[in-house]
């Protein structure tokens, strides 16, 4: 027997390796660097690593010549384990940018009086002497930064995976650190721990489906590789039932991560219980990774069977939009409301998923589904990060005041924060001149182009219902008089810059989305 050393394209995989490397170094830092300096070192390391990864990713991206008319399609690397094509690399950029912003949120110390928002000593029991002591000593878990970096690595692997094993590994690498991060809140630790438990339990459960689906598809196609699966699908060989079962179970695993109905049950609880900065990171990053993977798997591997899965996708899209919009109507907690909003947005993004058509049907210059969803992910991520960042600012003596009643009259004493938040909400609602509108337009158009008219109708009606609850918050902030002792804390430059970047992105992508859309139009094609 002869072993061949696997051939790895190190230069192209560098961003991923940088992130993984930084994460590993971060773990070592925890062991080697004195407690007092760990924060500075970890933050510096994470930021530097992410920035380097972004720069490197852009360098890799440039090799596709995305700025010219004739963009290269990208290539399959790492012994067919990963695909570095336009959508994958763009997902990398998005994930990295969102994680950079998240790092800034993670590192915010001014709001809690000099410590991060993470538990000082996760092992200390809530409400015990040990916890108090940890608090007075100003302890903090700096492990969150390596955990975040591991999750980022998972988010990069997930949408770039070219076979089911890699995809599964990516899924777990992104999920496991997140489970932990969810449970690390400094305040309201019981809720935080509960969120972690629920996320973990359900996440593991859904992984089970994913793995079983993987097995069935493998049984059908005889291979884990997408191109080979696609070949088997188009050839029509093998047991169709195996294919259907496998597709269905894989779909369950992915839709769970996306937060689509009827697999959305974890979303509100986890979003509410997790530390807000983690929620922001999950909402922005996980969506990118999961939608990237969903599109790749179903367009590349199961594209030939789209008449089989399309009806399910229709139903899921409709159900997700309806559940997200309707359930949000009666929410009284801002984070929980934003969680349901994220479910609704998952539904809106699902509409782009329905835009799958054969390339021949797509006219010149017409919006393609992948282009649309990548654009939407960009806009949604930026808006959402900024919105959650603002949630961290509104506080009462017991920490963040996420109950909506605490937000009444915010516009009176903090017009700037309330104004920006309103703008972000209008963005989420999809009012023109915000990125939410252009994004919605793009995904709805791609669905409409493929003839999914009923879904588009539900989508616009859902948007109307969604507008209702976004506007409710604006009314609360501006047209109601303040009660209680809610105040808006002044953040450091880190959180402020996240808010500024998010809001600016919401505006710029709303007014001049053209360049980004054109760019995506050139590269948004999967390599098979």
């Amino acid at each position, binding site marked *: 027997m002869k072993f061949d050393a696997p051939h790895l394209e190190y230069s192209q995989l560098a961003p991923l390796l940088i992130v993984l490397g930084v994460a590993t170094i971060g773990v070592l830092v925890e062991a080697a660097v004195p407690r007092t300096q760990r924060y500075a070192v970890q933050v510096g390391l994470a930021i530097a690593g992410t920035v380097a990864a972004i720069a490197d990713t852009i360098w890799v991206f440039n090799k596709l010549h995305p700025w010219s008319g004739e963009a290269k399609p990208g290539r399959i690397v790492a012994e067919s384990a990963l695909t570095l094509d336009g959508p994958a690399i763009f997902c990398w950029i998005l994930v990295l940018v969102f994680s950079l912003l998240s790092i800034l949120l993670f590192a915010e110390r001014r709001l809690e009086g000099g410590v991060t928002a993470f538990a000082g000593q*996760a*092992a200390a*029991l*809530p409400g015990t002497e040990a916890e108090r002591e940890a608090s007075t000593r100003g302890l903090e878990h700096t492990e969150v930064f390596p955990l975040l970096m591991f999750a980022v690595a998972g988010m990069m692997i997930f949408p770039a995976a070219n076979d*089911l*094993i890699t995809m*599964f*590994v990516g899924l*777990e690498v992104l999920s*496991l650190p997140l*489970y*932990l991060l969810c*449970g690390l809140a400094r305040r309201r*630790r*019981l*809720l935080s*721990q*509960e*969120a*972690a*438990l*629920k996320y*973990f*339990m359900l996440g*593991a*459960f859904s*992984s*089970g*489906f994913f*793995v*079983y689906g*993987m*097995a*069935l598809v*493998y*049984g059908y196609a*005889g*291979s*884990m590789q997408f191109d080979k699966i696609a070949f088997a699908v188009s050839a029509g060989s093998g047991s169709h039932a195996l294919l259907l079962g496998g597709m269905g179970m894989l779909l369950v695993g992915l839709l769970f991560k996306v937060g689509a109905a009827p697999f959305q049950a974890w979303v*509100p*609880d986890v979003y*509410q*219980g997790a530390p807000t900065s983690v929620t922001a990171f999950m909402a922005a990053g996980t969506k990118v990774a999961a939608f990237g993977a969903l599109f790749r798997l179903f367009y590349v591997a199961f594209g030939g069977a789209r008449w089989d899965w399309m009806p399910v996708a229709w139903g899921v899209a409709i159900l997700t939009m309806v559940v997200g919009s309707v359930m949000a109507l009666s929410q009284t907690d801002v984070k929980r409301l934003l969680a349901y909003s994220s479910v609704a947005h998952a539904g809106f993004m699902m509409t782009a998923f329905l835009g799958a058509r054969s390339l021949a049907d797509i006219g010149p210059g017409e919006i393609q589904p992948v282009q649309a969803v990548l654009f939407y992910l960009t806009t949604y991520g930026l808006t959402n990060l900024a919105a959650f960042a603002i949630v961290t600012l509104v506080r009462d003596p017991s920490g963040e005041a996420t109950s909506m009643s605490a937000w009444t009259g915010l516009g009176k004493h903090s017009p700037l924060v309330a104004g920006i938040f309103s703008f972000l909400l209008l963005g989420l609602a999809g009012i023109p001149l915000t990125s939410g509108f252009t994004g919605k337009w793009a995904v709805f158009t791609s669905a409409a182009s493929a003839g999914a008219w009923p879904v588009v109708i539900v989508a616009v009606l859902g948007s109307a219902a969604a507008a209702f609850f976004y506007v409710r918050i604006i009314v609360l902030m501006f047209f109601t008089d303040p009660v209680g002792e809610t105040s808006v804390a002044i953040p450091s430059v880190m959180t402020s810059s996240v808010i500024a970047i998010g809001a600016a992105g919401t505006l710029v992508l709303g007014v001049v989305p053209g360049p980004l859309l054109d760019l995506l139009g050139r590269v948004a094609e999967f390599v098979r």
Partner: protein
Amino acid sequence: MSVTPFIVLSAILFTIGCVGVLTRRNAIVVFMCVELMLNASNLALVTFSRANGNLDGQIAAFFVMVVAAAEVVVGLAIIMTIFRSRRSASVDDASLLKY
């Protein structure tokens, strides 16, 4: 060799796992049921690997096992903290977040 018996067995195991997740209260047991589901998948993977005549499935099975181990690490940590805070490992007790 017919794959059917193996697949049926794996399906039964998977189902038992599922049912266990739904019915058991203790977090540890629930977690074990999830592991059972993963192992049911492993059985299917290995079976198909054999049937298809390539090693992908077996490799996958190893990956799944490794991942399951990692999951155990994370999962037990979470369950431990919950247990310590609440003096209970029942998943039903953790229900503050709702509605």
